[in-house]
């Protein structure tokens, strides 16, 4: 169980703070009316996740999370939100009400199942974690894995990025027709 050493207590404390921030910011994202605030909350979420990754000895992934996710993706989000302008909607209103009930039920069911799986089913096996070898989670290790064992994934991911870039360009291109045509809904 929990071994109380000084290092251990420190890790626990950091973990508690980061986990709490993670969860709180996640709830905030889905709750705020203003999308701008939601985006900012998501940045907080990403940051706390990076801390959690560090606690799991995955330094490179933590760095990538902050640089790519929080740095690039979220900035893009903020750009678009600012471009679209202020738009608030009542977060829980509208739509068939049975859908809301069903949604809550489904999400709750998922959560319960995950807890059950972790707690009851996988009980013993999640207790002991393996000893880490030297260089686990370092950029060198990640690079080696990407370029040897998972080269195909690497290449395919790059193609996906290419496709997304092309898609973004096409979607953003100005159309030649009259700008104010509203397609029928």
């Amino acid at each position: 169980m929990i071994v109380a050493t000084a290092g251990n207590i420190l890790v626990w404390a950091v973990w508690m703070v980061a986990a709490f921030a993670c969860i709180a910011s996640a709830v905030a994202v889905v709750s705020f009316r203003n999308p701008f605030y939601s985006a900012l909350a998501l940045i907080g979420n990403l940051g706390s996740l990076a801390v959690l990754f560090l606690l799991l000895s995955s330094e490179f992934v933590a760095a990538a999370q902050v640089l790519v996710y929080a740095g690039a993706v979220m900035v893009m989000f903020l750009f678009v939100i600012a471009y679209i302008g202020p738009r608030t909607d009542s977060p829980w209103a509208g739509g068939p009400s049975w859908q809301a009930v069903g949604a809550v039920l489904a999400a709750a069911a998922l959560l319960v199942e995950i807890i059950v799986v972790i707690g009851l089913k996988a009980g013993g096996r999640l207790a002991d974690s393996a000893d880490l070898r030297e260089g686990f989670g370092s950029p060198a290790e990640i690079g080696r894995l990407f370029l040897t064992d998972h080269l195909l994934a690497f290449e395919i991911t790059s193609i996906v990025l290419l496709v997304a870039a092309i898609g973004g360009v096409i979607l953003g291109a100005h159309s030649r027709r009259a700008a104010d045509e509203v397609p029928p809904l």
Partner: protein
Amino acid sequence: MTVTGAWICLLSPLAAAGLITLAGTRITRRGAGYLATASCFVAFGGAIASFAGLLGRDGEEREVVSTAWTWLSGGSYRSGFEILVDPLSVLMMLIVSGVGGLIVAYSLGYMDRDDEERRYFAYMALFVFSMLLLVQGGNLLLLLAGWGMVGLSSYLLIGYWHERPSAVAAAKKAFVMNAIGDATMALAFFLLIKEGNSLEFGILGGDYSSTTANLIALGLLGGAVAKSAQLPLQTWLPDAMEGPTPVSALIHAATMVTAGVYLIVRTHPIFEQAPAIADLAAGLGAGTLLLAGLIALVQVDIKRVIAYSTMSQIGYMFLGVGLGAYANGMFHLMTHAFFKALLFMAAGIVIHALADEQDIRRMGGLRQLMPRTYLAFFIGSLALVGIFPFAGFFSKDSILAAAMDAGAYGYILWTAGLIGTFLTGLYTFRLLYLVFGGEPSPFVREHFHAPRRDLVGISMAVPVAILAVLSVIGGWIQWAPLWHPIETWLETVAEPLVTPASWMDWTTSAIALLLGGAGWLVAWLLYSAHTYQVPRFAFAQRVLEHKFYFDELYDAVFYRPTVRVAKAFYRWIENPLIAGGTTELGDETRDLGGLVARLQTGLLRTYALAIASSVAVLAIVFVAVK
């Protein structure tokens, strides 16, 4: 040569039919006629080749089977597409292709200017092929195939002038009655397969229990009776006269209606095992010949008189083969083909000359206007009545003589046959005198136009002439007491069961000649010299004119109840269940589709919810199972 000739004989008319059909309007109408005629003569050439080939062999070797391919095989049963060349089939091949060829040539002239000549010649070629398939079939299955196709061709040709409702009705009647025979034959074949597991001709000689043999023979007899228009399935033949005259000549005189006789001879082993059925066949033949002879006395349509005459003569053939005089029956089949086709074709020339009039009450005095046609008709009549030395004398009398050798029952039939001879003489010469005798009637004076001298006329005249010659000399090939090559020829196929002694032959011939002559005399007195008035027996006249009320009987017993049952089925079963059922099926499918379509709300959130719920459920399943 034997086999090749036989195949050429069989396939040449089929090729003609196929070519005419495929060529459509690309060949001229007359071209179709030439093609059909040529194919029949080629077939005749093939038949001659087969005949020559068989002649070169000894008696027992005169049976050649040629298989093209295995048609059906299942389990231990096997049927091949094979043709049989033996004396009996070659005899039929010669008759069918020879007389058929002459009749098709005659049609060139008769059907000239008809709008759909090509269809006619295609059908005629198809018929010749079907008949050849029937007689050349190497097993019962192919015989049945030919049998059915012959019925089909008959239907197509009777209803050839399909704008006429009477023709269409007659075609249907013929086909349905033939189908009854087909059904009984099929049942007989089922029994054969069950007992012998094969439909080769050989299994007919196998050992069967008396019941089985009787049932098989009865089924075969049913088919023969239907196809040959004997009692009790004879009502379709007079109506079949709605077809063109060459059709009547070929199908309903010379070939198709004789298929029943051929069948009995071919399957004689089973009839010999079922003597009761064979006697029944002979009895039906005797009954039919009397019935038809009586009805022919009051008919007023020229073709119908000849049709009843056909029915009567086939009765003679059934009498002969039923008693076991196979060769005599086949001999009469051959001579009958000659003189009956001759009579029909001569009648056709008369009909054409009188602008399609067929009522003999309006005719008269044509002898002066159409002397050559009169001569042909006269020769045909002499042959039919059996006057020496014309063809019918030799063949018909030999059948009756054979009946004398068949015990007491045979004597009864012999008497019936002789009465029939008197009737034959009477109605034949009645027809001759009414049509050709005396002075030209007013109708004739108004409508007669002489037969043409061009190709049309020649094409009609030459076959008639050839058949007239054959009707004279055709019988000379066998005179039972003196020389009988036909009997010898057919011996290897069917040994006769009855052999009349010489004195029987002479006696029968003498009496038959006397009675035939008596009939002629009576006809001359009544219709030509007008010495006496034609007696009027009102009741008998009515019965005969209604053809012994057979049509009315069948209508009441079979047709009306069937129609009522069919109407009831339509009202109670077909409409609500089947037609309604399919409509309901369509409606319900549409409704179900509508229900399912409601799932497509178009809302993103609904779809996402569906995915999330499914994942939740699946997770529970995985956790529980694992």
